[in-house]
């Protein structure tokens, strides 16, 4: 990763996070505008950092997990900006950016290894990583939507409107957001994991080698698969769907955490 550009990007994300949270309590339009600018600025710097790193390596900066997480953050920010524009849910970034920040801090402080041995590379590997990352990015938004849903629903049940009641959009909007992000993220995650499994066979010698990340990702996938099935087949909605989104995301975080902290083939 290009160190200066990346640090600048993280500084911009920190500023954007602070401003987005401030906008939650202090509804001044200019705060939101500044937050958006900081987010876009951070994203552009981040783009620069990733490009620089890619050029330096002569391959996509995706080979080690910290690199991949950084790219995932990049996708999340882009997606969040787009969804915010599409749905008009201006408080979305207040729920997405803290997560983004947590990940990008972690990714930037973890020592980046030279990456996978070239022999293990190949186009399918990049596709595996790329698709999984897009899936993860969608699930970050899925989590943010679910969190907002639960907060708003809590406010409505309390019957005593607080600041968040005025700030957060309608339950239906949030439920739709969680459903759409789930429907978007799931196929990417599925194909991503499948490719990983197919690739792992020849590369690692066995599909069932113990790799914490691989195993946990299957757990997360199962939770999401269950939620999607529940939503489409059994008509789950609202609170239940939101709880599942949160559990699924926790599993996903655990997965990435395992990849970052535990020894395994995904390298840290």
């Amino acid at each position, binding site marked *: 990763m290009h160190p200066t550009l990346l640090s600048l990007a993280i500084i911009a994300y920190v500023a954007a996070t602070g401003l987005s949270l401030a906008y939650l309590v202090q509804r001044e339009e200019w705060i939101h505008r500044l937050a958006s600018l900081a987010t876009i600025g951070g994203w552009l710097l981040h783009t620069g950092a990733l490009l620089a790193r890619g050029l330096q390596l002569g391959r996509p900066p995706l080979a080690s997990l910290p690199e991949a997480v950084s790219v995932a953050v990049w996708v999340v920010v882009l997606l969040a900006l787009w969804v915010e524009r599409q749905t008009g849910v201006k408080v979305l970034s207040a729920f997405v950016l803290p997560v983004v920040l947590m990940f990008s801090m972690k990714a930037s402080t973890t020592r980046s290894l030279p990456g996978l041995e070239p022999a293990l590379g190949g186009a399918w590997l990049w596709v595996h990583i790329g698709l999984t990352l897009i899936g993860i990015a969608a699930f970050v938004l899925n989590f943010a939507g679910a969190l907002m849903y639960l907060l708003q629903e809590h406010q*409505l049940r309390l*019957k005593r*409107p*607080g600041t968040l009641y*005025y700030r957060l959009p309608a339950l*239906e909007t949030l439920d739709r957001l969680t459903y759409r992000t789930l429907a978007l993220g799931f196929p990417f995650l599925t194909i991503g994991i499948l490719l990983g499994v197919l690739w792992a066979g020849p590369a690692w010698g066995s599909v069932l080698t113990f790799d914490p990340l691989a195993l946990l990702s299957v757990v997360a996938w199962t939770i999401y698969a269950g939620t999607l099935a529940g939503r489409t087949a059994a008509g789950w*909605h609202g609170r239940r769907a939101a709880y599942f989104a949160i559990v699924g995301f926790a599993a996903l975080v655990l997965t990435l955490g395992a990849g970052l902290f535990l020894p395994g083939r995904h390298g840290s």
Partner: protein
Amino acid sequence: MPLFVAGLSHRNAPVELRERLAVEEDKLRELLRDVTATGTVEEALILSTCNRVEVYGVAPAPGEARALAFRHLCQHRGVSPALVEPLLYTHLEEDAIRHAFRVASSLDSMMIGEPQILGQVKEAFALAQACATIGPSLHPLFTQAFAVAKRVRNETEIARHAVSVAFAAVELAKKIFAGLARKAVLLVGAGKMGELAARHLVEQGAFPVYVVNRTWARAQEMARALSGTALPWDELETALAGVDIVITSTGAAEPVITRAAVQRVTNGRRARPLFFIDIAVPRDVEAGVDSLGGVYRYDIDDLKQVVDANIRERHREAHRAEALVEREAGKFVARLRDVEVIPTIVSLRERLEEIRLGELRKALARLADAPPETRQALEALSSAIVNKILHAPITKLRESSRAGAHRTWLELVHELFGLTRK
């Protein structure tokens, strides 16, 4: 000439007095003419609503102007001036400007952020304009007051959150549903407030509307009024299954919608949210429905609680609005003062230019056969000297106007340079 506002409002005058002083349009015209006819008041605008009676004007002696205006008013309404006089407040100049901005922005209203006052000020302005009592001072003041009011409405949320129970219910519905378009409404009972809430929902696009009532004729009548469909009483539960929002306002002593009934219905709804607005006392919907997934129930107390929170929210926003008004008033005052010093700056320039041209002509007459370059040099030299000399006093005048101390400086400049007052 001082700008002033004098009057009384809901803040200090009781409603019995305010209603006695409220004036209709014809009489307002007459009053405006009377007040400006004597020359005591140069420009005037009278704002008369049920919450305030105020005279805005420009007069050499505001105290006299105020006495004159209210003497006329009291005479017309048969109220003793002795009753009114002690309640009157007067604001001058900057304070009058701020007051005009605050009133138009609905910051001085009984219910902060209520929308009527701006229209009332606009009407008062139009009337005064028609009577030709608006001049170079009040015209910019009120045009700016309208602009400030618009900014306050757009940039703060003082007018955004509902302060009536019926509207609060609509707002709640908008926090549950992404939009009210094509949301089905069921109205149970024939209470006035229920009908009002249903009407608000329909205005926001809710459709279709079903009406259930124990009295069939009443149900039909209400359905007609709301362009809805009347359903017989025993179809209440069936109707529940298909709608999104239920408004209840029956006079029944026992709940007409039980938890069991709602539970039976929700199974078929696939957790589509169901919102109960229970305006009836005693309540029509069993409180137990709260614990069902996707079901939200607000009774009259809950709605009042929301209204209270909304009012608190408006007051919080009012602080921001006040700051905005304060900034705008400051800007307006600065602009007015600039306007006041400009004539002096112009005559100062004219005076020095006159001297320069006179002296230049004399010098050139003496140098009859000087080459054109010399003439040009003299021209440039004299202009430069004049500009250099003017620079300091003009800057000082502009600065003093911003600091509010321009009157003494204006005098001084006039004295020093022998300028004649226009």
